[in-house]
């Protein structure tokens, strides 16, 4: 995979300091507690599986990290710096990209226009900034093909023509080549074929090996257990398990999730 060459890797420099650190984070909507006292650290060069049932708080956690919502209590540190203002733009500037199934590409635009969306290269003609379409075409074509898209994909075509797996691959390719440090994958393999799923999972592992922090959200404990370094299980807005992959089998982890499903009946027993 040529993607390895196309960015400066920082592997081997994994420090003990967490890249993202959440301390006692809570989020309440009125009486409803979406997150309760969650503390979790994420390190550079790590692939973390974030697992849990629907409504467990996985997405809420990610939305806080992505700057979309502000927690009602607790602190978030990015690279040692306390995050004071939660805003999507700030998360993007810090080099964080969240890859979601339904969000991230505009179907009405071409592959190359999607690739450079928000970071379009320009060239000056008569002092006016015009899009550098040649650069957009050539760079995006090289990257998407390096990441394993069909050779028949024309970057001038509408991105709507790509398959689901190709769209996911495209989003990952874009996130990586713009030198992001954190890639959050929110259910990246839903609705994908077996082969596409394997391709996306391979990419997740490669990103980690290049020194990125990859947070991988899924329902599928068996799938994530194969590739993750660490598994974090959420249940009912709390973190219930946080173990290295080697420490527990997928079956044992699945048991935790299954038992956790009965937690809401017993008030606050999850912790």
């Amino acid at each position: 995979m040529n993607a390895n060459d196309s960015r400066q890797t920082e592997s081997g420099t994994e420090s003990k300091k967490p890249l993202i650190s959440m301390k006692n984070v809570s989020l309440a909507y009125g009486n409803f507690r979406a997150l309760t006292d969650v503390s979790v650290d994420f390190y550079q060069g790590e692939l973390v599986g974030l697992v849990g049932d629907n409504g467990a708080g996985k997405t809420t956690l990610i939305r806080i990290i992505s700057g979309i919502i502000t927690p009602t209590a607790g602190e978030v540190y990015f690279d040692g710096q306390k995050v004071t203002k939660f805003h999507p733009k700030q998360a993007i500037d810090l080099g964080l990209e969240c890859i979601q199934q339904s969000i991230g590409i505009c179907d009405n635009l071409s592959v190359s226009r999607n690739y450079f969306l928000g970071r379009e290269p320009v060239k000056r003609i008569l002092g006016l900034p015009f899009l550098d379409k040649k650069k957009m075409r050539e760079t995006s074509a090289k990257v998407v093909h390096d990441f394993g898209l069909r050779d028949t994909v024309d970057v001038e075509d509408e991105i709507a023509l790509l398959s689901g797996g190709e769209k996911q691959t495209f989003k990952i390719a874009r996130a990586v080549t713009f030198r992001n440090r954190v890639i959050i994958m929110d259910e990246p393999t839903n609705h994908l074929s077996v082969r596409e799923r394997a391709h996306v999972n391979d990419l997740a592992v490669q990103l980690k090996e290049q020194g990125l922090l990859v947070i991988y959200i899924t329902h599928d404990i068996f799938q994530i257990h194969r590739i993750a370094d660490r598994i974090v299980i959420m249940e009912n807005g709390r973190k219930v398990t946080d173990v290295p992959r080697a420490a527990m089998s997928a079956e044992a982890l699945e048991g935790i999730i299954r038992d956790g499903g009965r937690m809401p009946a017993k008030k606050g027993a999850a912790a």
Partner: protein
Amino acid sequence: MRKLLKRPDVGVIFGCIFLFALFSIWNPRQWFDPSTISNISQYTAILGLLAIGQTFVILVREIDLSVGSVYGMVGITFAGLENSNVSVVVSFIVAMLFAVVIGLVNAIVVVRGKLSSMIVTLGGLFFYRGLIYVTTHGGVTGVPEAARSDWFAQLLGGHFLWAENGFLLLLLLGFICALLLYEMRFGNHLLSVGGDPDSAASQGIPVDRIKTIAFCLSSCFAGLSAIVTLANQPETSVSLGTGMELESIAAVVVGGTLLTGGKGTILGTILGAFFFTAVRAQMIALGAPPSWYVSFVGIALLVVVTINTILSKRLRSI
């Protein structure tokens, strides 16, 4: 050829070629008469300018129903200042600033209030029309002869050789807007907001700011269109611009811009304006009652949109 067929405005391009050929053969003496050309180019300019502004708003998945009243309001402000002996350039600047403010108000209510632009600008349609009645007490005077012969008014409302200046202005601004839309970053951001606002936001595109600019452009083009109208004609009335909002939307839609946003062209919009204007001129020339035109707009809209939909489905697979 494949590229041409894939354009969203392919329907109106062929439609206008067909219309031009039809009228050239059917009624050449009337069609190529200098006064017909002058009328059609002037009205195409007026409707086209309004519709270009509307195109930006529709491209971001919103709609601006207030442009007809804004056209009236800004036009009457301009005429009122002229009648108070304010210089033409100053009146122009003041009237256009007023247009910017109206656009900002529309945008802030839609974006901040998270309200449907259809409701907000419908409110604007009534409010600014009412404001015209209140401020003028029902009586308005057009731009006086002296002001219309001023160099700046002539620049907007006069003619150059055979062409109306308003029409040349439409072509110039149309060209600039097309560059802005397809060759610059702003255009890519605007199209992305229209295509999928959440995805655009996820890539750091300031969605609200882009929408605000679109609404301001719409009001400015409406105001400019009104000034071009009044710089050219001696009289006006409180109903100036009534119904123009729907005509501008019809021109945009016939021009191939999708009401769902994200896809459209400036060329299509200008041709859409030409299409309706040319048909209206011909209907009047053939002695059809003017009210038929309104029915025609309705039918043409349905036919063209149906054809566009069928074409785009068929051509997807090419």
